[in-house]
């Protein structure tokens, strides 16, 4: 993880979480090639501002998605007025008209995914796994702990694999095929399991307990209830789209989240504090506000459908500044 300028406190993991959530919502919510292109550019800018190495390689990978999306969609979707070429109808699946509309639609979807690849690259680099795990409500604390431990163990496992490989090489083993990997895998697994047992003993020695706490069952019941409401809303939105199913989905998600948050949390001390400062609060508000504006305020005009005849996508005046507001966290982090 690259560090921000010396003397400056890094942004909270919660701010980065809000930032990447906003990018995801906008990318998936507004299917518009101009928005996708702007998000891709913002992702590159964010990588540059936060000094993440390998921008060119990551950008090449991101650009693969619109290309593959365009080709894939054009090959399978034979809808649209602007026919570029015709493949024999006898050819299964791909046979038929190859249209500019299908190319554009596929590229737009791929552009959103490519942009998200860059945004999540920045997020993973800036938000520490430990801080993200601390953000997890009590309901997910154990699973978050597994994730944090696994993230810490993965590089160690890689180093141990190198050591085992070197040790086996001194015994004359030169792995050539899959079968030769067995002398590498077996000690790696055995060593890992041994390390896990030691870790468990260390956790027990430090008083880590996972006993059921009073009130946790009621909260878990709320979680299940919230899940049911959200599922009903989600299925309702798919069957009979409208305001009521969306409200049910949101209400279910809210009951789910509140119940998860309400689970009793044990009193623990922290070695490292990552406070949520006023700067974090301001940036989170700006980012979420811009997202709400994009999705609710100008969302209707952002939606773009190339079928049946390709048209130039619309980008309302307010969308530009709202999108630019999303670059604020990387900009502030750079300082």
């Amino acid at each position, binding site marked *: 993880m690259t560090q921000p300028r010396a003397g400056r406190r890094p942004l909270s993991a919660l701010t980065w979480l809000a930032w990447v959530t906003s990018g995801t919502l906008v990318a*998936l*919510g507004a299917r518009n090639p101009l928005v996708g292109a702007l998000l891709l550019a913002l992702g590159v800018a964010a990588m540059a501002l936060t000094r993440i190495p390998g921008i060119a390689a*990551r950008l090449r990978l991101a650009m693969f998605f619109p290309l593959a999306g365009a080709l*894939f*969609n054009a090959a*399978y*979707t034979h*809808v649209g007025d602007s026919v570029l070429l015709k493949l024999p109808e006898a050819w*299964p*699946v791909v046979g*038929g008209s190859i249209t500019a509309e299908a190319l554009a639609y596929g590229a737009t*979807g791929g552009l959103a995914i490519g942009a*998200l690849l860059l945004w*999540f690259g920045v997020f*993973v680099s800036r938000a520490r*796994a430990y801080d993200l795990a601390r953000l997890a409500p009590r*309901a*997910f604390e*154990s*699973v978050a*702990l*597994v*994730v944090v431990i*696994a993230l810490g*163990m*993965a590089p160690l*496992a890689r180093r141990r*694999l190198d050591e085992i490989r070197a040790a086996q090489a001194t015994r004359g083993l030169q792995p050539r095929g*899959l079968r030769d*990997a*067995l002398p590498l*895998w*077996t000690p*790696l*697994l055995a060593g*890992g*399991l041994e*390390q*896990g047992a030691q*870790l*468990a003993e260390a*956790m027990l020695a430090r008083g*880590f307990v*996972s006993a*059921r706490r009073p009130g*946790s*069952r009621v909260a*878990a019941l709320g*979680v*299940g209830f919230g*899940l049911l409401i*959200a*599922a009903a809303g*989600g*299925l309702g939105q*798919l069957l009979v789209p409208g305001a009521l199913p969306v409200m049910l989905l949101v209400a*279910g998600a809210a009951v*789910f989240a509140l119940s*998860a948050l309400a*689970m009793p949390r044990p009193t623990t001390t922290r070695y490292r504090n990552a406070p949520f400062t006023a700067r974090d609060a301001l940036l989170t508000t700006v980012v979420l506000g811009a997202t709400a504006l994009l999705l609710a305020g100008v969302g209707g005009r952002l939606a773009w459908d190339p079928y049946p005849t390709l048209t130039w996508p619309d980008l309302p005046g307010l969308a530009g500044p709202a999108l630019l507001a999303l670059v604020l966290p990387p900009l502030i982090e750079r300082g």
Partner: protein
Amino acid sequence: MTDRPALLPRHAFSLGLFGLAAAFGGLVLAWPFLFPTLRGGGDTAWVTVSLLALCLLGTFVDAGEGALTPRVIALLAVLVALNSILRFAENALPGPGEFSPVFALIILAGYAFGARFGFLTGALTLLVSAIITAGVGPWLPYQMFTAGWVGLSAGWLPGRAAAQPGRRAVIGLMAFGVVWGFLYGAIMNLSFWHLYAGTGAWAPGLGPLDTLQRYATFYALTSALPDAFRALGNAALIGLFGAPTLAALWRTRRSLSFTHTTA
């Protein structure tokens, strides 16, 4: 000490919540066949991703409700870390087609430690490896849920109660790996299938059988061959590494099942 230890407690309440979340996730994944009159498009994409994410969290809540002891947390973390390294290696040196080395360990862990442990191994492997390889995105809930089901179903296989897994168990798991090699690809395709229109692609209003027929055509033409590499890879990895891996996991299982009580 018991022959068949329950690493995760089997409270009716916990099982109910887990079953609810896992079953809803399955319904969400299978919507093109169960609700063929639905419309597709962007709305469907965000609703299904949101619902799957909620279902995943639902399965994690069960684990967080006092179910994971320090030993289980450490064991799960070790297996997830080792499997994530395999996925990292896969990204660095991609295998043929859709070959991936991560499913073998998910299957073996689910078989050794039970359905819910297998689900968590599968889902968290995909999460951690996605973080390591910067592969986080809206497709992740689909990947996590499907990989979770790989481990979950491995825990339902017979023979787990045996004192030591034999050759028959390994052969059975190889066949299981072949089935999931194709099934994983078939389920993952459902995440984007409804976004495409045309020959062999999804169309609203068709009956379940017609939809299935269309999907079978689409799958056979686009994914069966690449997925065959995943299926054969699973079988090869379980065949080569299954016996020693299961032996190590069985030893761990025995040590985890050891408890003592004071009179």
